[in-house]
């Protein structure tokens, strides 16, 4: 027994020494390289003026604002696109999920087709498709059912006076439709995890399909759906960094610009990591709250 414990200790010491020495070697190389380039690690450059313009900024911003402020605008832009495509993805995802478990065979085939098509092509390709084919090549207004309320053109989407840029709109549509395909699979899995007897029971009680789905099946399926939903939301947040491909100024795109301008690769990268961490924390904490709420609601 004693020999065994020492062996474990021995392995751990060896592995950690190896690990630490490799890290130390890398850090040593890094500091040598940075010194040669004349760049010590510091963050004072954050408060110099950025010098580049931003097409979209939720708060007042001008090229004379600081790098820190520019990065913050990028973070807000990320938050904006994540939260709005999250809503769209959830809506479409649940609808398609219901359709794929519903009684209408045609609808089931169609939702299956949608999920396969979306999952078998790269998201980046889809985003470029929505941007270059979906928005930029529209000639004139193609869709405006109510004048001034909702219109689609190569200037983006106009929704009751709010003008969404084509960059934002294509991200919204692309991320929304992509994530919805995955969410629909999560929802389908959750609904299928409810025993078939529950369906038979509410049908025999005379409840309609809709009533049964909302009052009997969904409350039981939700606890199974939520963890999958959370990880899809986190994926959505991570995928939103592809915004750079369509020229939307999200946190990654601005971070990239800042790093190219200042040459502060390490500091910029650390700040990027920090901002992703913050986004992740926000999403997972909100979902945790939702989870708690649903569990207590169920117990009542």
């Amino acid at each position: 027994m004693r020999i065994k414990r020492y062996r474990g200790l021995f392995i751990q010491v060896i592995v950690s020494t190896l690990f630490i020495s490799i890290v130390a070697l890398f850090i040593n190389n890094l500091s040598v390289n940075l010194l040669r380039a004349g760049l010590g690690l510091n963050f004072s450059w954050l408060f110099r003026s950025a010098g580049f313009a931003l097409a979209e900024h939720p708060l007042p911003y001008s090229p004379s604002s600081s790098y820190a402020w520019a990065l913050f605008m990028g973070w807000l832009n990320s938050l904006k696109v994540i939260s709005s495509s999250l809503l769209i993805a959830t809506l479409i995802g649940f609808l398609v999920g219901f359709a794929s478990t519903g009684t209408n065979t045609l609808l089931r085939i169609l939702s299956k087709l949608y999920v396969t098509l979306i999952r078998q092509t790269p998201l980046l390709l889809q985003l470029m498709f929505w941007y270059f084919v979906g928005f930029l090549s529209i000639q004139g207004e193609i869709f405006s059912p109510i004048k001034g309320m909702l219109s689609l053109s190569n200037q983006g989407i106009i929704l009751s006076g709010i003008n969404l840029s084509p960059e934002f709109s294509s991200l919204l549509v692309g991320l929304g439709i992509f994530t919805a395909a995955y969410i629909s699979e999560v929802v389908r899995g959750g609904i299928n995890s409810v025993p078939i007897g529950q369906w038979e029971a509410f049908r025999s009680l005379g409840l309609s399909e809709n009533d049964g789905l909302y009052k009997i099946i969904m409350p039981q399926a939700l606890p199974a759906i939520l963890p999958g939903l959370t990880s899809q939301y986190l994926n959505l947040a991570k995928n939103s960094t592809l915004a750079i491909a369509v020229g939307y100024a999200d946190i990654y795109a601005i971070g990239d610009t800042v790093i190219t301008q200042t040459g502060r690769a390490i500091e910029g990268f650390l700040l990027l990591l920090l901002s992703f961490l913050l986004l992740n924390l926000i999403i997972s904490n909100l979902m945790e709250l939702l989870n708690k709420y649903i569990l207590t609601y169920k117990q009542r």
Partner: protein
Amino acid sequence: MNKKHNLFPYIRRIAFSNSLDTCITLFILLAVFLLSTITIKWLLFGADWAVVIQNYPLYAFGLFPADQRWRPALWLLLLISLTIITLVGPRWRWLRKLLPITWIGVIPLGIVLLSGGLGLLPVASRYWGGVTLTIFLTTCSSLLAFPLGIILAIGRQSDLPLIKFFSSIYIEALRAVPLIAILFFGQLLIPLFFPIGVEINRVIRAVLAFTLFVSAYVAEDIRGGFQSIPKSQEEAAKALGLSKLQITQFVILPQALIIALPALTNQAIGLLQNTSLMAILGLVELLGISRSILANPLFIGRYMEVYVWLAGIYWLICTVMALLASHLEQKVTIEKLTIKN
């Protein structure tokens, strides 16, 4: 129910069971009809496929020197024929035994064919591109990420607290960060961590970044496999007197890998799709070369044709990968059954 004799009620049951269903069915039929007429019209009259037809070599090999194109072509041909043999080839025993080794061997062969050496003219990695580079990135990264993922998964299950700690930190950190940030790290920051004079080419750096990223996800999938194996297996093995290493190697790991296989397939397919991100970071793989083609004034505005074509290629490769994986899955399950009996 006999569908043939009751076709009419069958259709009625699946599509027109109540008024809402009837509305939905009619609406879908109308929408599908309209969409397909638009699509067929565009395919026949609207589309100009010159942008695809004139650029086949670029899509396949990127900017690879024209007189050396036979090398990536040979490699792709080998991969295709291996795939066909694996999926529908004859079931001779010696051939089936040879296949796994050939699959693993085809990757170093690809490296030699692409980069040169061994009597072949060296070709710098900036000339690699197209589907060849996409497949090269996918195969190399998954081959490297697989063992690393296994090690991380075992590390995370370990009783030794420090090893468990390091593995968990690695897995969680990599899973919290978007892939593009890791790739960015690979392209811009990896050189900073190596001594001056050590140059690693861009493709290798991309492979390293993909490997770091994917291995964290592979580790989680394999851990899922570990957790679904009943504790009694380990106890039984212990009772037989197997050492800890032997238990992992011969009892737990093989079963965990079989359970994790579908998830690992999804990782590989996801990896193939994610190689397209290198287009943003300056490699001319399939999507990157298409962006260059679209920037050519000759083909200006031909987005639709190129994107439909690309979607078709990605779809085809993903489907082939899924087929190969399900073949492997079948084979593994059959072997498991024969061992049992």
